[in-house]
């Protein structure tokens, strides 16, 4: 494909879409699929055909719109009025949607909010859950069909790559550095810097690897991007490859995400056919292609060196660093592993410029972050917010609080590597630095809410048990330390714990933090340490009474 053809194809697709008076976009991510999204789409199409409205109304599947607890969702866009969002739609309601809303709108009526049968299924788009978001990574989710390349082109798809092809590798790295983009997998390392370090290593073979392992329990941001906007990730990878003079690309996706694998493979096939991947990309003479590799159920494989070992067909055990993957990675070649959300930002940054991205966020944490709001929260689902927004705004305004008569006790960010943040600290702005100062971390974006009925000890025990189970076993601090701490926490939970046990927990935790080979072991003590910091009474009240305590 020649570069100019991108615009021509985009315009053609836009014209095609605008030939319809109404467009119904139905969420078709894994969650909504399990609630019948595919059937809903089939039924809608059948109803429209039967009523001879199919020439006027387009029905497409789209990516995660965010309010997962109220799915499946359908968004109606039309030429004559503002968008309407439907929730909790069942396949049998397809007829009602057409008769009570679509048909009247086609007839010239304006539907503010549906009444009757559909009244309970209407979601106000003006509510904070939607208005307070700043969707960059998720901008195509809810808008475009992830299974059609042309739909991706309509909103500037692959124009970022086009621009990158006119720049030098050094220039692309600088642009990324200026944007302030930091790794969204959790560590927050500046992406531009990581790329530049890899770029500087001269080698004939270099790898760009997409980390789609998303092992944090309670996190599904990456899944939604891979399923809802696969081309954005592909474009991001291609730009990354240009930035580092890489020669091969690999998608590493966890096996628990079959739909994500399917969508990425389909998108790659489409891109190859269109000359956007493979040989002579955008007529530039450059060739680059990808392999897709599956994980097999190991949390530790989210760690970059363990991930590399997994691609090499081995047990997922990390390696000591240095040498870093930038110097010696996959098969010994320089490699760069990037998170899915990080890559989805890349194409937008290339398209709209570093300054556009850097204009949002705080001074050290630029851009936005996608969070998965789960647990005891009313508006359960996926949100993308600008950095700097407060935790309270996320949990209470956007999330709607618990939605029951119970109060929010705390949140947990960063998954098994993160920490508890009690309610009285919710006025903290979201940024890498702020969350770390609170004893937690940004993590990949999982944000678990617990209420006053939930036990903090129980939750940290859950995370600890997870880390102990998922530990690869290679290094002693993690393998032994984790088990020892878990044993001690169990004693406290059982009521046989002592003050000495808490002291030992702290000591072993310190050893793990200092001596573990990888971040799994280094951060496994975080939940328990932060719980002791903020919720110590919950531990001490379970200890044996001092008079009868034996060492």
């Amino acid at each position, binding site marked *: 494909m020649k570069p100019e053809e991108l615009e021509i194809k985009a315009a053609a697709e836009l014209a095609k879409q605008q030939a319809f008076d109404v467009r119904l976009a139905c969420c078709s991510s894994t969650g909504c699929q399990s609630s019948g999204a595919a059937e809903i789409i089939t039924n809608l199409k059948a109803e429209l055909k039967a009523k001879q409205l199919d020439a006027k109304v387009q029905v497409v599947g789209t990516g995660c719109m965010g309010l997962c607890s109220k799915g499946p969702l359908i968004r109606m866009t039309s030429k004559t009025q503002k968008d309407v969002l439907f929730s909790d739609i069942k396949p049998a309601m397809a007829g009602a949607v057409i008769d009570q809303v679509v048909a009247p709108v086609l007839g010239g009526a304006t539907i503010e909010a549906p009444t009757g049968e559909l009244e309970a299924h209407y979601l106000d788009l003006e509510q904070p859950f939607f208005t307070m978001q700043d969707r960059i990574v998720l901008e195509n989710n809810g808008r475009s069909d992830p299974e059609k390349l042309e739909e991706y082109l309509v909103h500037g798809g692959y124009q970022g790559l086009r621009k990158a092809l006119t720049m030098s590798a050094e220039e692309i790295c600088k642009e990324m550095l200026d944007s302030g983009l930091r790794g969204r997998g959790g560590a927050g390392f500046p992406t531009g810097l990581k790329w530049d370090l890899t770029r500087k290593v001269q080698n004939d073979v270099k790898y760009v690897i997409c980390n789609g392992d998303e092992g944090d329990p309670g996190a599904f941001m990456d899944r939604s991007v891979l399923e809802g906007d696969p081309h954005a990730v592909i474009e991001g990878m291609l730009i990354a490859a240009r930035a580092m003079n890489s020669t091969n690309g690999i998608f590493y996706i966890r096996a628990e995400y079959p739909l994500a694998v399917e969508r990425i493979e389909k998108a790659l096939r489409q891109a190859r056919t269109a000359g956007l991947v493979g040989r002579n990309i955008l007529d530039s003479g450059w060739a680059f292609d990808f392999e897709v590799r599956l994980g097999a159920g190991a949390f530790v494989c989210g760690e970059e060196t363990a991930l590399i070992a997994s691609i090499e067909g081995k047990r997922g055990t990390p390696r000591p660093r240095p040498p870093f993957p930038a110097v010696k990675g996959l098969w010994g070649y320089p490699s760069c592993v990037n998170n899915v959300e990080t890559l989805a930002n890349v194409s937008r940054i290339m398209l709209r410029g570093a300054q556009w991205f850097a204009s949002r966020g705080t001074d050290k944490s630029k851009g936005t972050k996608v969070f998965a709001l789960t647990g005891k929260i009313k508006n359960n689902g996926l949100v993308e917010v600008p950095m700097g927004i407060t935790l309270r705004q996320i949990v209470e305004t956007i999330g709607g609080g618990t939605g029951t008569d119970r109060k929010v006790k705390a949140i*947990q960010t960063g998954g098994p590597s993160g920490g508890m943040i009690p309610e009285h600290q919710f006025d903290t702005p979201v940024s890498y630095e702020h969350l770390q100062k609170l004893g937690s971390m940004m993590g990949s974006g999982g944000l678990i809410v617990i209420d006053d009925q939930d036990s903090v000890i129980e939750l940290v025990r859950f995370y600890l048990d997870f880390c102990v189970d998922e530990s690869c076993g290679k290094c002693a601090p993690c393998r032994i330390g984790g088990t020892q701490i878990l044993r001690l926490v169990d004693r406290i939970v059982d009521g046989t714990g002592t003050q000495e046990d808490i002291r030992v927990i702290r000591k072993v935790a310190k050893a793990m933090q200092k001596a573990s080979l990888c971040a799994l072991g280094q951060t496994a003590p975080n939940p328990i340490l932060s719980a002791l910091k903020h919720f110590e009474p919950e531990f001490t009240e379970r200890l044996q009474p001092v008079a009868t305590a034996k060492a």
Partner: protein
Amino acid sequence: MSTAIDVTTTVKVAAPKAAAEPKDEIVVLAQKWKKKRGSLIMALHDLQGRLGYVPRESAMKLGRAMDVPLARIYEVVTFYNYFKLEAPGKYIISVCTGTACHIKGSDHLLKGLEKELQVSEGQSTPDKEYHLQGVRCLGCCGLAPLAAVNGKVYGKLNTSESHYLIERIQEDKPMVVAHEEVEAE
């Protein structure tokens, strides 16, 4: 039948061509993945996708065909949670034990299913109808607590009504839909 060979009337006839050896699917699978460096895990996924688990004999065959020592295969198969060494039941019930599901009672759901099916987590029923396992976060946290049965997700489950899930399974009979294999390119 006479056992004496009648030397004078023996006619040399061409031996009938042996029926073409049916291509062993494991060998075919190995040939496909052998071309890709480090693709042992992909080959094992392929194998488990066909057989439901990784039998020892198949692992041996795969090892020979891919030139990978059996020990290496077992290193991998015992490390990654995904691979099964024993044939599972027909309906594999995967109860999600991710954080959101945990907070909403996945432990309770799992225990209820253990009681309902009379098995422990990680086991199959004697009649090989069901296999029960806890799995890591499936990424559908908005539908917590949930279980996936052969890939079909059942969300917002009532953790005290595990028999309801069994009924749904018998009604839906979810089986893995064969989809396009991951290309070895």
